[in-house]
């Protein structure tokens, strides 16, 4: 327990219960972890799903009998083949385990988000953390559930495995002509690199001033530095707002680039025909 933790735990115990968060019945701490109703749900389904994955990959479908590490890297739990469609199959060889693990993972992620809501409430702080987590949860839902449902078969989901999902991603990128031509992918990647850039700037900025208070260095030095350097200092609150929304929009944009592929757009190069053949280019005589 941290030095100041006891006070906050006491305070948390006094926070009124909420039906959606399990009425506070499991308002207990296990070591440093808070449990709560959603914590228990996450624990049960998380354990089930992980155990199933590890069992499949390390033992049941082990690709390399001698090296368990390679099994971990190379192993995969594959989605049902296309002929299964959207059926819930219980056949071992037909992707039952994929369905099972995806089901467990979805419940776990949702429970984890609700748990963050629970804890945010107990700590009397805002819900930005579960909102941000919700963005990445929506990504899971989009890729593994919404898109397969729209296209009519589970086989559109990605295989669960370390290298296998890289392989899937590599193939997916070349399936709709080329993902490099997907504008939403481009925006997502821009925000992804933008995230790393913002993170690097923010981390470096704070570290450049940390521990210098004795020498009279305050946030105003940082402001002054940014005005000198860029002409604009976004401010202590602004940087975090920018940070959160850069990261969240990155994920939301990537959702869009996934869900549009195969449902609406088959060919991200042909997509740009709208630009090449737009009526406002006609009549200039260079076509």
């Amino acid at each position, binding site marked *: 327990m941290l030095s100041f933790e006891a006070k906050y735990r006491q305070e948390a115990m006094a*926070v*009124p*219960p*909420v*039906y959606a968060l399990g*009425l506070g019945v499991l308002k207990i701490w296990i070591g440093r972890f808070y449990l709560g109703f959603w914590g228990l749900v996450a624990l049960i389904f998380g354990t089930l799903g992980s155990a199933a994955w590890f069992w499949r990959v390390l033992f049941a479908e082990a690709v390399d009998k001698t090296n368990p590490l390679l099994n971990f890297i190379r192993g995969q739990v594959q989605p049902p083949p*296309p*002929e299964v469609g959207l059926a819930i199959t219980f056949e071992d060889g037909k992707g039952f385990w994929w369905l099972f693990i995806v089901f467990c993972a979805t419940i776990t992620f949702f429970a984890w988000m609700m748990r963050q809501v629970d804890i945010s*409430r107990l700590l*009397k*702080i*805002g*819900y*930005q953390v579960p*909102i941000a987590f919700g963005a990445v949860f929506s990504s899971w839902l989009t890729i593994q559930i919404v898109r397969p449902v*729209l296209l009519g078969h589970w*086989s559109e989901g990605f295989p669960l495995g370390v290298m296998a999902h890289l*392989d*899937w991603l*590599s*193939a*997916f*990128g*070349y*399936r*709709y*002509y*080329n993902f490099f031509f997907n504008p939403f992918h481009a925006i997502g990647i821009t925000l992804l690199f933008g995230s790393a850039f913002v993170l690097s700037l923010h981390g470096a900025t704070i570290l450049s001033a940390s521990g210098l208070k004795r020498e009279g260095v305050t946030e105003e030095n940082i402001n002054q530095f940014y005005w000198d350097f860029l002409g604009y200092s976004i401010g202590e*609150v602004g940087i975090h*707002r920018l940070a*959160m*929304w850069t990261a*969240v*929009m990155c994920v*939301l*944009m990537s*959702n*869009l680039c996934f*869900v*549009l592929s195969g*449902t*609406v757009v*088959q*060919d991200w*190069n*042909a997509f740009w*025909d709208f630009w*090449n053949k737009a009526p406002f280019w006609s009549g200039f005589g260079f076509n």
Partner: protein
Amino acid sequence: MSVHEGAPPGAVAKYDELQRSILRGELVGLVAGTIMALGAVIAISLALTDVRNEFGLRADFAYNYAGVQQVDFVKYLARQGKQPAQPSAEALQAYSEWVAKNPKTVNVQVLNKYLGEKYNETANVFTYMAAYFTPGVGQSCEYCHNLQNFAAYEKPQKTVAKAMLIMQFELQKKWVNTIPRPEGQPLYHIKCATCHNGQAKFWNTSLKASNPELFGIAGGGNPTPYDMRNVGITLNGVTPSSYEVVDDQYLAARQDADGNINFYQVTANKDTPAGLNATYRNQYAMYHQNTALGVGCDFCHYGGYFKSYVTADGTFKWPKTQARHMQAMMQDIAINWFPQMPSVENPNQLQNYYAQPNCYMCHRGYVVPPGAYSFNEPFVPGVVSDIKPLVDLPLLKPILPNQ
């Protein structure tokens, strides 16, 4: 029932107010998120209403992993606002007089050689002509024939059509019948419509200028109009030499060290020196195939490693070996057949031009060309024609599973 039983009076409201006051700052983000959500909703509704069929864009999108479907030729024409051509009333009248006079054919040279004795009957020849020539080329009988004497070679079009028919059968025999294919996959037949798609003149220089997208590689050196518009960009009228355009040198069949014949240098990292130009060139040739067949790369390739013919789980990629076979056919057409076609202006003279057919010529954005025909009975090759290929291009040794 109140779920907040036991809470101090006003506590819940106070907490809620606190949360709200903090969240107010996220207004901008939430608005952006709402726009995103709206975008997603629009996208999903678009998917549900299936705009793909509405617009009938380049590809039919019928391609999936379970198998490929052929798009109906009539439907394909309908999308362009056309209907399959029919013999004109005048031609039918002339034919009925002709068949009454000549129930046995007069001077039919090709059909009966390739397809057998059946085509010594005038009626059977007419059935063939009306079924394949007329809709395929989009012209009535009088386009080639003298209606008073169907047997005469008065119109140069007939000479050309005869040469084309020979080419069709020879290509069928040499390339299409030998395509490596999995069991159960139908074998398609080349007919006039396969390339002509209802147009008599679909391949000439004037069309090439006005429809660059139809004639990507052919002659112009622009491999893939959709993909490399910047190749068409000129530097004061000259293509920038820093981008080396795909030219005949790369299109021509040539053997590599392993004895394989590579067509338009489709090797990403084999025999490529330093620099990425060879890779770019290779990729554009590949993109052309994406566009022409309306498929993604992983229709033929294993996405993890393009050079492999099998996926990581051992599935053999038939389309890859088939595409290789088809490229060989393309080269055969370019090297052997196009230069030998008589020209309409002067049927006694060969056109003798080099043009590179491309995948789009027949495929038109579909895996199976809309103008290809599928029959239950296989094509039985008959006697060899009087036109022979200039160079006997060797058949590729097919790459098959478990090799």
